[in-house]
């Protein structure tokens, strides 16, 4: 398969990239890892007039700690997340998700920022970053702004980013001293998209739940926050009863549809089971590190 012809740019600074986006508007696409965009171009579902390859912009590739949280450059590859010592313990939801994304070869190229900007409702990072309460930094002609990941997705493959904005980094806030979480994914085989994915992240305060983040993959038009489950958990003791109730509520929050991966009823059931399992893991594995 051959993509349609396009003008190619390989800027080395964000300023240059921004100028090109400004010039081409919504006729340009940003190329990061390309593991979603290039297949779409080959199928001619996307035929951008200009492609702005940001792989040469070094500052987008940094991963580090900041103010007790994490700062993850938009070009950080899934493989780096998989191997990073930082994405464990309190940030276990991220570390557990990384090796479940697609397959190892795709993970060598694919990026966290590209995955978010692509906004596939079956993308894994979206749910994980909603659960941990992350925000993204978008750089446009008038400077930068931050967008909570919970407000980023407006529909399937649609974000609140403007055509002249570049997603430059993801910021994961400090979850406090005691926190834990995980990401559970049901897939038919390695490399498939999620039939269902559930991201769970809990910050503990004085032995109870401080903040609980639960978000769902593959059961809605975008990654979805399980809002009623989160509300029920806030301030609660994370015992069996609370965990079962949260599982029930998360299943209600899901908006699954029947498809070739399973029936809506089945997916709802998996959401319930995964939410319970995830919360049990968060309760056992809560980490001070």
């Amino acid at each position, binding site marked *: 398969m051959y993509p349609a012809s396009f003008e190619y740019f390989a800027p080395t600074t964000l300023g240059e990239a921004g100028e090109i986006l400004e010039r081409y508007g919504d006729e340009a696409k940003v190329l990061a890892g390309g593991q979603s965009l290039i297949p779409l171009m080959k199928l001619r579902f996307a035929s951008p007039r200009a492609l702005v*390859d940001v792989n040469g912009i070094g500052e987008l590739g940094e991963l580090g700690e900041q103010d007790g949280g994490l700062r993850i450059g938009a070009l950080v590859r899934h493989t780096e997340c998989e191997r990073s010592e930082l994405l464990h313990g309190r940030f276990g939801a991220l570390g557990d998700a990384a090796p479940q994304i697609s397959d190892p070869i795709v993970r060598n190229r694919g990026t966290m920022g590209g995955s978010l900007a692509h906004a596939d409702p079956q993308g894994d990072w979206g749910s994980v970053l909603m659960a941990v309460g992350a925000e993204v930094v978008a750089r446009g002609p008038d400077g930068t702004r931050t967008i909570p990941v919970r407000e980023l997705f407006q529909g399937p493959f649609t974000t609140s980013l403007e055509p002249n904005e570049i997603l430059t980094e993801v910021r994961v806030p400090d979850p406090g001293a005691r926190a834990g979480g995980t990401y559970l994914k049901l897939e038919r085989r390695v490399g498939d998209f999620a039939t269902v994915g559930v991201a769970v992240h809990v910050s503990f305060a004085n032995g109870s739940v401080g903040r609980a983040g639960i978000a769902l993959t593959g059961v809605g038009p975008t990654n979805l926050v399980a809002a009623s489950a989160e509300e029920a958990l806030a301030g609660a003791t994370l015992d069996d009863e609370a965990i079962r109730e949260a599982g029930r509520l998360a299943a209600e929050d899901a908006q699954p549809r029947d498809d070739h991966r399973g029936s809506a009823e089945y997916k709802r059931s998996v959401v319930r089971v995964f939410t319970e399992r995830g919360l049990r893991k968060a309760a056992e594995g809560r980490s001070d590190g």
Partner: protein
Amino acid sequence: MAEAPAVLGGATTRPVTVTVNERPRSELVETRLLLVHFLRQTLGLTGTHIGCDTTSCGACTVLLDGVPVKSCTMFAVQADGHEVKTVEGLAGAEGLHPIQEAFREEHGLQCGFCTPGMMLTATALLERSPSPSEEEIRWALSGNVCRCTGYQNIVKAVASAAGKLAGR
């Protein structure tokens, strides 16, 4: 054809220099040319196979700066200034690469279509992890699909190659 300015003059063709199997190759390419077509058609290196053409099967796997990538899901212009290794670059003056010897000895293939991608992914694994467990081998190869073997002999071949490399 005028040469494309470095950044701001976007063009639909572009000169690239890619070091393929340690030999620099300079060509003028269409920006939409996929890396796999650059290797197979522009350079005539047909050892890199096109299987699914949809980023799923791993038959087109090559090493980009030592890292396995699917060459059907990358543009040739993105490889400009980088090093690519294909199956043709595995054997050296002293004969077959240990991974190739091991695939032959352990019968790690039947039809052979997936084999170049398997071997390149495996060499990158052994570079990073010289004595991998069976689970590690299976995990590393999980992006490379084989329709013939059931993977048993492929896994044996990678373990055997690890032994050969350690003995060198």
